[in-house]
């Protein structure tokens, strides 16, 4: 009988779920709202529908991401760093350094044989995270998804001197008022965020190959800015938002296989996909 593994990654901005056996059978990406537990339930239901599987067929569920404790049906919670590491190693085995630019934090992860050996995180300041781009895009009246393409048409990136997200937004609006071209301003924002991330990850000894994951990896302007900082190309997984969820599912599989090898019975959660709220 086939075994199926689910990984669910409740990030600060997006929630991701995958169903795997030998490969990814189905995946879902949806925005994270305030009701994590309710959302986890819905995202998992959607992933199961796409995989054409009932929840009872899922052998093991691992939750990760900053909302991981709010997944009541998960068998285990694992930190996002470990899950990203496992996911990236599966998708891009040659990678030794992972840079993840998420909605509210950014991380650097050093890998050896697919396992984490060191990491750094920025969770104190929006600068250096997706939130920085989100807020400044709003200030500029540009769709977040269009930022990357626009930046590629820049001629001279504008220097953004404020690292604080709030003040940087004011700065870019004033630069727009001064008549500076929009693409140049956006390219400047990408350079600013790349500089912040690069200095943070620089605490690790950055080794090639480098993978870029998270929402930031979907912004081609940011990818290019980071490559300029590093001096070489980075690898981006086919769907950079899913590495954490894939890693969670794979770690679940590892746990089950290890337990089977030892003849152990794993402790499991209550296996019901019921809705839960903060008020129950």
């Amino acid at each position, binding site marked *: 009988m086939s075994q199926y593994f689910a990984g669910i990654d409740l990030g600060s901005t997006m929630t991701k779920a995958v169903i795997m056996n030998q490969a990814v059978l189905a995946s879902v990406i949806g925005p994270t709202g305030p009701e994590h537990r309710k959302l986890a339930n819905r995202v998992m239901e959607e992933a199961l529908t796409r995989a054409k599987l009932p929840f009872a067929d899922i052998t093991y569920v691992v939750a990760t991401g900053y909302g991981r404790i709010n997944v009541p049906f998960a068998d285990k919670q694992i930190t996002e760093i470990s899950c990203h590491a496992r996911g990236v190693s599966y998708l891009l085995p040659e990678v030794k350094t992972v840079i993840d630019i998420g909605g509210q934090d950014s991380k650097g992860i050093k890998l050896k044989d697919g396992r984490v050996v060191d*990491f750094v995180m920025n969770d104190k300041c929006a600068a250096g995270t997706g939130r920085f781009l989100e807020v400044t895009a709003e200030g500029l009246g540009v769709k977040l998804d269009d930022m990357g393409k626009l930046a590629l048409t820049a001629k001279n990136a504008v220097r953004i001197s404020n690292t604080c997200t709030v003040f940087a937004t004011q700065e870019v609006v004033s630069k727009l008022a001064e008549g500076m071209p929009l693409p140049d301003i956006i390219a400047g924002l990408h350079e600013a965020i790349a500089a912040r991330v690069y200095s943070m990850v620089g*605490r690790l000894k950055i080794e090639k190959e480098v993978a870029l994951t998270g929402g930031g990896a979907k912004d081609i302007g940011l990818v290019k800015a980071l490559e300029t900082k590093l001096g070489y190309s980075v690898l981006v997984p086919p769907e950079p938002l899913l590495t954490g969820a894939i890693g969670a599912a794979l770690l679940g599989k590892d746990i089950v296989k290890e337990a089977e090898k030892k003849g152990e019975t794993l402790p499991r959660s209550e296996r019901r996909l019921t809705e839960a709220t903060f008020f129950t």
Partner: protein
Amino acid sequence: MTEEKKPEEKKKRKTATEAASKIGPMVKATIGGTVQAREEGKPIAYSFICCCYDEIIRAMDIVPVWTENYAGVCGAKRDAQRFLERAEAENFSRSLCTYALCGLGFDAWREELGEMPPEPPWGGQARPDMMLGSGQMLCDPRNKWYQAAQHYMPDIPVYDAGAPWPPYEDDYDYREVQDYYVKYIVEELKGLVKFLEKHTGRKMDWDRLSELVDLADRTWNLIWETYELRRAVPTPMGTGDAMNTMVPMVFMMGTQEAYDFYQELNDELKHKIANKEGVIPDEKYRLIWGGGLPSWFALSDFNYFNSKGAVFPVEVTYRMVEAIYHFDIDLSKITDPLEHIAWRWVKFWTYWYDKAKKRLGSHPDVERLIQYIEDYKIDGIVMHEAFSCRSWHVGLIWQLNLLKKVYKDIPSLILESDIVDISSYNEADTRARIDTFIDTLEAVKSQGR
């Protein structure tokens, strides 16, 4: 109104040793004692820890008010914000040392009211008769804080006892210049004694000072020997407790009470070792607190580490002693008490210099870490970057990088917050980092690195 703010609720931290659990009441009694001393007209001095004048003030029966300690108490009780905000309202920058800001905010408020601010933690910080600063490399508030406090207490005299030590350079032997440093410190301490005699009307009892210096020497040795017991597996005491047991070391040096405390701790640790009683029953990861003052309001994070199987058998923070008998001079032959204090001071701060010179590109602070990592069988290193403590925390990342370069690539975790300012702290993020660090330690262990 900031004056109206009440502290957040905080649970009492669980300690592993009986000795550590006694510290809270001891500090409370000491602080209460300073308020009572003020009422009784005893001479009171604002004082800093680690300024090599402990025995001098004890010999003259001057009551020290340890201002850093009081700020730490406000932080630990999560009741520092109103004093920080008060200092900010006085135009002090929020990026200054938050110990100093808390103290200055408290002083400004107390002086304005002519009495303690409302509901002061543990009875409040008593008004001093004098303030004893210190010019040295440990931190800049030591010679600026009390000058600033004079804005609110212009009648209170300040004495800055300079206590420098030779800086580390790999291309010279500090012994070439150590005599000059000792001579300078002795002159500064003589000046301090004159200052204290003038403002208290008392005469220094030099024989008593010599006795207290000898007592402090013995206490140094006893502390060193006691802390070395923590090498045991499982370790009987962690850094969480050491952040309590440092109190007699830095606030009560030169007192019989401090010596007795460490004797009791020594006995307790030996008993625990004999019974294989560790901080936690199943010790999986042994960590070093490799630098940085703790967040006094979040000491329960040490318990969180424990809940994940991690213990801290050793720390560099507040381990402010070495075994006197390891120094390269025989201090017992230096009978002049001031000279004795000065030599002990210089030898303490230069203790790791020779070792650093033997490893290409190393540094004394890094050598100390390496020694502890080996002696205490350490798996990983944790540091805390407290944003407001610039002089002591600024080189931590550099130390960590150098350690990895000259020694080995040991797993590391940098926590970011502050010593007193709770607004810099996020428990969920901190614990997420700890969880990830534990995963990393597990991965490294499973790879047999």
